[in-house]
């Protein structure tokens, strides 16, 4: 393949990746209800969106779930990455390695269904978690969020200079102190990136949440999904534009943080 052909493929690839997103944003400012037929510039759908109590309520639930799930995922991900990168060979290492990679590829319908069945079985046996709702969604999202957090934190941990930790140890710092004073500050950019990734993934999940949610805890993606199954809706376009704007800013911050000291970007 010549260079020009190759370059054209790459340009086509990026157009393919971005054209749908750009079209969503442009048509969110369309006056017509017929989303794809342009009839003039208007911001009225943003107004409709902000007056829709169903969407606002669901957005609030989603933000709460995403915040809690991202915090849990970051803590669990840090622990798992520390064990995998720093502890050398230990019993159960292969198991832990498998447990943090399998959720990355497992189809969502399987994760959702199996978790729901677990919650029902636990409810019958122990009376916990006492029905479905916010807590079951948080648990589900923290679980797959952990898998993604480990990938981000592990990459950073491998790149960290171990000699600084060893120096602290030689100077008499206890392991816990070394971790909080040396390792954690070094990991900080990756921790923020992992938290943001877990947060946006949680904010985006429809399938798993549909299984483990109750009627009273409908998340934002569940509301969007039920709306768009009926066809295009200008309010969803407006919402999409807000989501895209927010996520782009968060992603830029995360990328900037993880690139700052390494000169490379990681997921």
């Amino acid at each position, binding site marked *: *393949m010549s260079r020009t052909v*190759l370059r054209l*493929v790459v340009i086509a*690839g990026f157009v*393919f*990746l*971005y054209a*749908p*997103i750009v*079209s*969503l944003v442009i*048509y969110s400012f369309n006056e017509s209800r017929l989303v*794809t*037929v342009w009839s003039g510039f208007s911001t009225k759908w943003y107004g409709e969106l902000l007056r829709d109590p169903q969407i606002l309520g669901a957005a609030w639930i989603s933000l709460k779930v995403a915040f809690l799930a991202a915090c849990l995922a970051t803590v669990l991900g840090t*622990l*798992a990455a520390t*064990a995998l990168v720093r*502890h050398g060979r230990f019993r159960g*290492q292969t198991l*832990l390695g498998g*447990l*943090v*990679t*399998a*959720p990355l*590829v*497992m*189809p*969502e*319908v*399987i994760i959702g*269904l*199996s*978790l729901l069945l*677990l919650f*029902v079985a636990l409810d019958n046996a122990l009376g916990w978690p006492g029905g479905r709702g916010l807590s079951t969604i948080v648990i*589900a999202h923290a*679980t797959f969020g*952990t898998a993604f957090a480990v990938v981000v934190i592990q990459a950073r941990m491998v790149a960290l200079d171990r000699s600084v930790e060893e120096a602290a140890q030689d100077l008499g710092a206890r392991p*816990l102190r070394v971790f909080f004073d040396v390792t954690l500050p070094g990991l900080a950019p990756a921790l923020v990136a992992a938290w943001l990734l877990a947060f*946006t993934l949680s*904010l*985006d999940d*429809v*399938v798993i949440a*549909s*299984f483990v949610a109750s009627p009273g805890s409908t998340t934002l993606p569940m509301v*969007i*999904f039920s709306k*768009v199954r009926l066809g*295009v809706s200008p309010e*969803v376009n407006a*919402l*999409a534009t807000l*989501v*895209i704007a927010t*996520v*782009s800013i968060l*992603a830029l911050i995360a990328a900037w943080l993880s690139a700052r000291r390494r000169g*490379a970007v990681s997921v």
Partner: protein
Amino acid sequence: MKRLVALIPMAWLGLFFLVPFLVLLKISVSEPAIAQPPYMPLLDWADGILTIALNLGNYIFLTEDPLYLLSYLSSVKIAAISTILTLLLGYPMAYVIARAPEHRRGLLLMLVILPFWTSFLLRVYAWIGLLKANGIVNNALLAVGVIDQPLVMLQTDFAVYLGIVYTYLPFMILPLYATLSKLDADLLDASADLGARPGTTFLTVTLPLSLPGVVAGSMLVFIPAVGEYIIPALLGGPGTLMIGSVLWNEFFLNRDWPVAAAVAIVMVLVLALPIGLLRRVQAREGERP
């Protein structure tokens, strides 16, 4: 202390990822019932006698109705074709990014990753507006005069392929980029010095050395694509058979939890081989310095 660090995430993932599969397996061999929850207990303790009601009926049911077998085959076919298409588009992109000058690489990678951060659901939704009968693509083609009747693109298998390639492209590019960027440039120079043409160098040096990336990327696309639900639900038509939709309907519409569980267990078995392949490639990559 050291033990606790590994134990906490292991306990969490064990309880909320591994144990659910055991529950899934258990429910898949229980008798459906009109009750809350809608299945019979597996173990029964009556009159001091423990009876185990192992019911393989749900699995037999899957073989009796051709819908299930056809859905599995169709899912694997759709996922496989989409994976190949994603590879054909993703490989040149990863190759160019890996060969790009250092200062531009970060930006290009960022451009690949950014859509991955943007809502998956909303990106699939965007294609409805593009593909539908009076959608953006048809309107543009009609205006230019290429067609005089709108093309039927939405609610077809074509739209499902498009949706999968579109949403999973970053998963293909990133592992490919990882192996291609580690490729020793001296090997390529040596090949060229020995008189190999660029095409020959690509086929005999670059491609074989990037094979781990090809396998990893392909599996990262193929495995979730087999069980995909959102894309066929939004872009596919009534004729699009995918096992993720079958499981969803079995659970949410028919409320037959045991059959849904059996469908899921068979899906895990179908995916065991690709998942094993992915684990092997990733483990080997991890061993390399």
